[in-house]
């Protein structure tokens, strides 16, 4: 076969050479002597002859180089043909097991995001049925980041937002674990905006290959690129009908039209198309041409992205791989070749159905389907999903983060062309809750009289793994011209204070949570010579108090007092340890958060605290595969423990008290629950920024609210960002903060005002965690009476089994 092509090519080259030589000759003839005394008729004939020769000369002189030019174009483009494939971005797969916590609403949201269709029964993959709290789900086969798993039908019940009775087969019952194939949340498209999934001819259903030829080009196996008979027949039919009813284009011509040419309908283009088709057939096998056709033909449009080829079209319309299509599906796609938008089954279902059935009839008349098969297939509905599974991301802010993580290891061009499979950490249901919390939260704030132009960012992270579950960078879903979660660099205000107190607690010989401190006016000389005299939010100095109350009520003067003992340089060092690489000014005002950080940086900082000092670099990508499912990169969980984790544990307790009795004490009312939550509010000068960072045992989230122009926005931590935060956490399963103390720390009953040990039941006695050996030495009178049974409620609550 190859040999044949080569010899043909040589022939052509030979012809071309002779053509070239000829170009000189006719001019020579023309210059020859002309006989005298010829009749007018003859001279007319001669003149006509000359004109013809001139035209022929022109045709050869211009035509041959033109053909050569087209030949070069055909060969160079087709030889090096390699389609740019978009990368696919997947959410995290949802793990379902007995005891897994998920509400019915969330499970439905997850199924919807993963493209599952609700049906009367889950009879085929990609469908589910729900009856009360009983779910029957037919999972699709999918290549996960750690390997392929086949399609699988399983059932479960939801009992009080927990999965139970997971089953469906002995294997499922034995494993106790099923993963849903993840939502495809975005594609990273090639610069030409073409969307395709490559298929090889040998993986293409036989019916598609034969059916395509039966409908579009019955002579495909025999012609040399163009089929004059077909063209003649088509012209005749068109003339008879008075309009275009038939096309005479071969598959090769259609491929050329799609691959090399623009869509304008000029005669020149038609000629080019014919020449290029002949050339293509000359150089390449039918197999190569057909395979290219299957991957190139235009089959639909999604926004600005053009769907090319049957591989992607199959997913786009049926949400199924090509090999799983039935006769009626294949007939529809084949029919759409004629006009993908005219026969668009989503927009023009009746027209598409008519075309499909027409195609099925042709399948039957050519014998590639039996009459009965065609009748059966025609009885089927179109089978097109109501909406395509993916496309432009609904979660552009998160995908933005994904790209930024990937760009460290991959060229932007590779992301746009290599068809990578990117596995991310996004939880679609939680992302939806987060976006709703921001969108409706800000609308609600406008109702309360705050500026209508307020903007917000929200970052939700899994505490233990550092995996980013949701990221919102704008109040409008889908809008991402400015990703505030990653790029809004704003003053953090009091959100930084916990680090000042952490540094104090790390000096355990100087400070514990109840060490007496004073909140009083303070004046400091700044590096530029000016004097800085911070005031409290309420413009009152509150006098003496236990250390943790300075944090719990976010008193500025008390915090600066502690901070000056610690040293600003140490605060900057701590920020660096927590993974904050921004430039931070070494001035006392930094102690009160005159530091500009992005929401995601704040999330990183608090992940470390929420995880008890087990810092984990935030991740949005867990693995990257080739289009064939081979692993290219895994981004594993990495623990970066901080020193002094006992101090972190103490701080976590103080942060729960911020919510229990401090600046965030309205949170319980907003959430309508009493679970133990740690949090910190933040407000900046002239109420420009509102921050709230809060965490439960499982999740940490940062909310920021403010104006893009950094103008005064009348926002405070608790009146704006905390409401947005609560809007999100209301939808998430509750989980109280883990207050187990690490080795070398524990809860003790104390009386903070007296700075003395106390006992349960004594007046003013509270349980506070201390690092061993740092509790007060003094004891209250009540303690003396009751003895030293000062094992606290917290100890009992979080005690390990003996």
């Amino acid at each position: 076969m190859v040999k044949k092509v080569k010899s043909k090519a040589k022939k052509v080259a030979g012809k071309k050479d002779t053509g070239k030589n000829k170009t000189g000759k006719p001019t020579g003839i023309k210059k020859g002597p002309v006989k005298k005394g010829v009749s007018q008729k003859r001279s007319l004939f001669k003149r006509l002859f000359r004109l013809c020769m001139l035209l022929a000369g022109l045709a050869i002189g211009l035509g041959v180089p033109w053909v050569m030019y087209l030949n070069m174009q055909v060969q160079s483009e087709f030889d090096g043909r390699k389609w740019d494939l978009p990368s696919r971005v997947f959410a995290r797969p949802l793990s379902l097991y007995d005891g897994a916590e998920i509400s019915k609403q969330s499970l439905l949201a997850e199924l919807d995001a993963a493209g599952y269709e609700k049906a009367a029964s889950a009879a085929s993959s990609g469908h589910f049925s729900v009856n009360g709290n009983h779910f029957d789900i037919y999972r699709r086969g999918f290549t996960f980041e750690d390997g392929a798993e086949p399609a699988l039908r399983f059932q479960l019940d939801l009992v009080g937002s927990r999965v139970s009775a997971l089953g469906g087969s002995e294997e499922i019952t034995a494993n106790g674990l099923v993963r849903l194939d993840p939502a495809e949340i975005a594609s990273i498209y090639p610069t030409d905006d073409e969307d395709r999934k490559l298929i090889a001819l040998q993986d293409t259903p036989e019916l598609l290959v034969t059916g395509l030829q039966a409908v579009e080009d019955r002579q495909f196996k025999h012609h040399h690129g163009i089929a004059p008979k077909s063209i003649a027949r088509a012209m005749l039919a068109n003339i008879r009908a008075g309009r275009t009813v038939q096309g005479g284009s071969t598959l090769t011509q259609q491929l050329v039209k799609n691959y090399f040419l623009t869509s304008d309908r000029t005669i020149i283009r038609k000629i080019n198309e014919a020449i290029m088709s002949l050339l293509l057939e000359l150089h390449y096998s039918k197999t190569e041409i057909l395979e290219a056709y299957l991957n190139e033909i235009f089959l639909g449009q999604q926004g600005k992205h053009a769907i090319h080829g049957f591989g992607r079209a199959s997913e786009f319309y049926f949400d199924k791989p090509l090999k799983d299509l039935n006769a009626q599906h294949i007939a529809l796609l084949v029919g759409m070749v004629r006009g993908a938008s005219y026969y668009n089954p989503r927009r023009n279902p009746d027209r598409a159905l008519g075309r499909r059935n027409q195609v099925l009839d042709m399948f039957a008349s050519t014998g590639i389907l039996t009459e009965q098969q065609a009748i059966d297939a025609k009885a089927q509905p179109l089978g097109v999903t109501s909406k395509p599974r993916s496309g432009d991301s609904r979660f552009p802010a998160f995908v933005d983060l994904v790209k930024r993580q990937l760009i460290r290891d991959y060229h932007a061009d590779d992301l746009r062309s290599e068809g990578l499979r990117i596995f991310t950490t996004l939880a679609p249901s939680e992302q939806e809750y987060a976006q709703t919390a921001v969108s409706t939260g800000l609308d609600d704030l406008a109702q309360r009289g705050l500026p209508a132009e307020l903007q917000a960012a929200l970052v939700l992270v899994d505490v233990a793994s550092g995996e980013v579950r949701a990221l919102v960078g704008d109040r409008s879903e889908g809008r991402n011209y400015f990703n505030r979660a990653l790029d809004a660099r704003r003053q953090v205000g009091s959100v930084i204070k916990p680090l000042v107190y952490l540094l104090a607690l790390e000096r355990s010989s100087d400070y514990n949570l109840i060490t007496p401190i004073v909140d009083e006016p303070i004046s400091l000389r700044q590096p530029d010579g000016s004097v800085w005299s911070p005031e409290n939010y309420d413009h009152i100095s509150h006098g003496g108090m236990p250390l943790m109350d300075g944090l719990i009520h976010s008193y500025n003067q008390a915090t600066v007092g502690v901070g000056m003992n610690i040293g600003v340089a140490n605060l900057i060092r701590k920020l660096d340890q927590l993974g904050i690489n921004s430039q931070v000014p070494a001035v006392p005002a930094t102690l009160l958060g005159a530091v500009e950080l992005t929401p995601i940086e704040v999330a990183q900082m608090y992940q470390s605290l929420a995880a008890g000092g087990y810092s984990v670099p935030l991740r949005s990508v867990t693995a990257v595969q080739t289009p064939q499912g081979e692993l290219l990169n895994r981004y594993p969980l990495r623990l970066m423990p901080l020193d002094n984790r006992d101090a972190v544990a103490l701080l976590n307790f103080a942060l729960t008290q911020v919510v229990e009795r401090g600046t965030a004490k309205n949170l319980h009312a907003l959430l309508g629950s009493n679970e133990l939550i740690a949090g910190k509010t933040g407000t900046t000068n002239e109420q420009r920024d509102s921050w709230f960072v809060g965490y439960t045992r499982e999740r940490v989230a940062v909310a920021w609210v403010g104006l893009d122009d950094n103008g005064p926005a009348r926002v405070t931590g608790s009146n704006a960002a905390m409401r947005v935060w609560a809007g999100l956490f209301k939808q998430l399963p509750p989980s109280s903060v883990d207050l187990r103390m690490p080795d070398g720390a524990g809860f003790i009953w104390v009386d903070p005002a007296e700075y003395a040990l106390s006992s349960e039941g004594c007046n003013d006695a509270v349980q506070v965690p201390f690092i061993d050996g740092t509790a007060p030495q003094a004891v209250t009178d009540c303690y003396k009476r009751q003895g030293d049974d000062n094992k606290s409620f917290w100890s009992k609550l979080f005690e390990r089994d003996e």
Partner: protein
Amino acid sequence: MIRSASILMLLFLAGCATQAPAPVERPDVDAVVREPASEDSEGVQVYSLQNPAVKQLVAQAKTAEGAGNLDQASGLIERALRIEPQDPQLLQQMAEIKLQESDFQQALNFAVRSYESGPRVGEICSRNWRTISVARESLQNTSGAADAQERAKQCMNVRPKKL
């Protein structure tokens, strides 16, 4: 008697894990961590049973580890950790995988976390400290390594006085 039975049991279990001879720089986790810890604890395990999904993932991870596929094993443990983020067993198994990958810093970090969230006594405590010891040794912290060896021994007789 119980002791020798448990050793036999462990050797039997370890059989699959030691099929391929490990490269020199890779610590033999069975020899330096698991077997002595099991020996010390006389086979007594104090941690609670895990949920079936986690158990299944752990079993798969053990198979992968036995086949020398450490990357897959750590991926499976990571999946299990998403279900039970502070399970000391999972954290310790991850530490042992990291040890075999010669990723000593991560081995150390996971073992410490396992210890802190674990029972701090018994077999797993011993595995925690033995892993920490090997990792410290490899990270040139000789005195820390010796210290950890001591702590491993204490796992069997000292109850931590505090939570």
